[in-house]
């Protein structure tokens, strides 16, 4: 693959279709700069600021854009509210659609055949593989990313975090908790 990719890069740059500086920028941005920390800050703000929370559920793209986390692959965004009665989980059965500007590039498992094939048909079984065992009466809403709308799960705020600052709360928000295959860390899992 290394040789095949080098061939494509040589042709595309020799013919002037792509700018080498643009390639560097793309790699630098998505490998180093943009990651799940962005989404974690959005969730933490939604936990402490009721007005922001309402805005996030009403107009997700505008609300995340106000924090500088909008843009490529989150142009249209629906935030999904987890509650004691409803748990949301996001998949792209057709490939790998994912809110890049909030979570970075998707992990391998998200793009893999086991997840894509089973998340829609057996979400509870998939959640168990991630160690998430929800009560039997919790409704499970699966969201299949079939359009340019992207989804961000807003998990429930962990117990015993009253008075925590946003920055500390963001440390509890895992990538998986924003996809719906995990839950946020609990207070005893982090050193304060």
């Amino acid at each position, binding site marked *: 693959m290394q040789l095949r990719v080098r*061939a494509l890069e040589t*042709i595309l740059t020799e013919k002037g279709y792509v700018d080498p*500086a643009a390639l560097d920028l793309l790699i630098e941005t998505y490998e180093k700069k943009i990651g799940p920390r962005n989404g974690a800050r959005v969730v933490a703000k939604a936990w402490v600021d009721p007005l922001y929370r309402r805005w996030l559920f009403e107009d997700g793209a505008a609300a995340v854009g106000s924090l500088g986390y909008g843009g490529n692959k989150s142009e249209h965004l629906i935030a999904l509210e987890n509650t004691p009665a409803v748990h949301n989980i996001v998949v792209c059965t057709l490939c790998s659609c994912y809110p890049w500007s909030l979570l970075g590039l998707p992990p391998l498992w998200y793009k893999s055949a086991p997840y894509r094939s089973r998340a829609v048909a057996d979400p509870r079984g998939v959640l168990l*593989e991630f160690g998430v065992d929800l009560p039997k009466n919790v409704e499970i809403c*699966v969201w299949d990313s079939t359009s340019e709308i992207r989804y961000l799960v807003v998990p429930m705020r962990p117990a015993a975090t009253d008075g925590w600052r946003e920055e500390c709360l963001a440390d509890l928000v895992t990538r998986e908790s924003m996809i719906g295959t995990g839950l946020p860390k609990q207070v005893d899992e982090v050193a304060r």
Partner: protein
Amino acid sequence: MNGAADMGGMHGFGPVQVEPNEAVFHADWERRIFALNNAAGASGAWTLDAFRQTRESIPPPEYLSLSYYALWVVSLENLMIEHGLATAEEIAAGRSLGPANPVATKASAAAIARMIARGTPYDRPPPGLAKFKTGDRVRAKNMHPKTHTRLPRYVRGHVGVIARVDGCHVFPDSNAIGRGDDPHWLYTVRFDGRELWGENSDPTASVSLAAWEPYLEPL
């Protein structure tokens, strides 16, 4: 198309494997192909939906045997040939053998920076009134186009409820085959798990997805 990419509901792939502390890229060529595809796509030579169609057109035995970014390599080779950016001889030789095709515009670093910051919105002014409203029951059409579509097989023929009206968006089925934006109304449709997966499936589960108006018929 009914290709290998449309995986919802398939059996036999085994449990989900999670790699602890996974790196963003697993090899240098993955970095390069990620950037090359995004930069070449931003040059306007083809659309995002055409990229998807090309990837889904990889024959199922090959599709299922390739890693995620290896699929991108095959797709970029195919797209470059199909859209006249390179010949098969050039790809085999690994270098340019002739002049550039003037259809593509070079995506500069500044243009890529703008794309990252602003994105590429897919909503468009509506061509007419929406046919459905929240709460309407609809059936996903039993359709099997041989070209790109975003209506997965597992919902075709099944009944769901309009949960949201999501505006008017570029229609991938048209955009993928060079017919332009052709915007249509987009809806969130919610399907009960049992409607999709039968009476032995989880009664507490549902699947919601975005479906364009041409995918749906009224009940």
